[in-house]
């Protein structure tokens, strides 16, 4: 473990006020503040990993128990939309990384552009999600009183989607519960992320992050990349269960 002591200057350097304005006074140096803040952000992301971990555990168990139902449920999702969303989110991660770089290179317009692009791509993602949810609602795939297993017992194209017995067809509700829980939780995190982005864009345009204090951009970037990683795992697990023909 790193054990190097991190406070080197005695307290009287503070009197000469040589430190940058953003240095909080309980830290000795800006470097200490930066390292501490990065560490804190990563610890928060660890909690997010464990939070989604519970959902992944639930998913893995029920997928093993009700595999045919999961296949049938997964096949009702459009791969095209899912792939587009994955591309969009990866793109937004790229623009976010570029945003951090712009902040470090002190390019204000570049930073604002990257943040706006990230936000735009995030909104595109949410828009596509909205259409997917709407379709699910119309097809009676939302768990609850309105859920319909008709199309799973008597599918339109039996060659591509083999019919399920009523028992297993009822289990598609578990699949969709997990689908909505996991993508819903993910979407909630994206909405929170976009809200913070609005705030960051406003501050960036005022020139807040191009004078050496790139921490907020960097740490928000970490959060945004994490949300992307969650989707990177959600996409194959939810959309790509047994899609190959002739199964």
């Amino acid at each position, binding site marked *: 473990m790193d054990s190097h002591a991190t406070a080197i200057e005695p307290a009287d350097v503070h009197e000469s006020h040589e430190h940058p304005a953003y240095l909080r006074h309980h830290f000795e140096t800006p470097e200490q503040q930066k390292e501490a803040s990065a560490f804190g952000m990563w610890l928060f992301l660890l909690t997010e990993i464990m939070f989604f971990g519970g959902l992944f555990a639930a998913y*893995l168990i029920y997928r093993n*128990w009700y595999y045919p139902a999961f296949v049938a449920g997964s096949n009702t999702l459009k791969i095209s939309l899912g792939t587009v969303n994955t591309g969009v989110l990866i793109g937004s991660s790229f623009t976010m*990384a570029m945003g951090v770089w712009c902040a470090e290179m002190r390019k204000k317009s570049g930073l604002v552009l990257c943040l706006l692009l990230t936000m735009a791509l995030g909104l595109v993602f949410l828009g596509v999600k909205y259409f997917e949810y709407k379709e699910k609602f119309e097809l009676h795939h939302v768990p609850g009183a309105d859920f319909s297993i008709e199309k799973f017992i008597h599918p339109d194209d039996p060659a591509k989607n083999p019919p399920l017995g009523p028992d297993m067809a009822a289990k598609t509700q578990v699949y969709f519960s997990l689908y909505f829980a996991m993508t819903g939780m993910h979407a909630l995190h994206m909405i929170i992320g976009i809200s913070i982005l609005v705030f960051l864009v406003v501050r960036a345009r005022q020139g807040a992050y191009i004078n050496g204090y790139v921490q907020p951009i960097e740490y928000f970037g970490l959060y945004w*990349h994490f949300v992307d*990683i969650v989707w990177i795992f959600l996409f194959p697990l939810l959309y790509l269960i047994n899609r*190959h023909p002739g199964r």
Partner: protein
Amino acid sequence: MTYLLIFGALLVGTALTVGAAFVDLGHFNPVVAILIACIKAVLVILFFMHVFYSSRLMKLTVAAGFFTFLVLITMTLSDYLSRAWGLW
């Protein structure tokens, strides 16, 4: 620069995942899908999140997080997999 390369790699990975879904690999389909997803995640973590350039402590922290996640998954699954309710 590096970001562009990683971005490209991630898109290639996505295409591979989708493509592999349409090929019958039997029990290996989900394995391949998760494997590609893991590689993509590692790329994002190392390069977009700068962990590659960070201190040993950061790397240890990230590893600890995923370790605990794996403990949750495997030990819970070990209960379900070893039940004699035979739904495999």
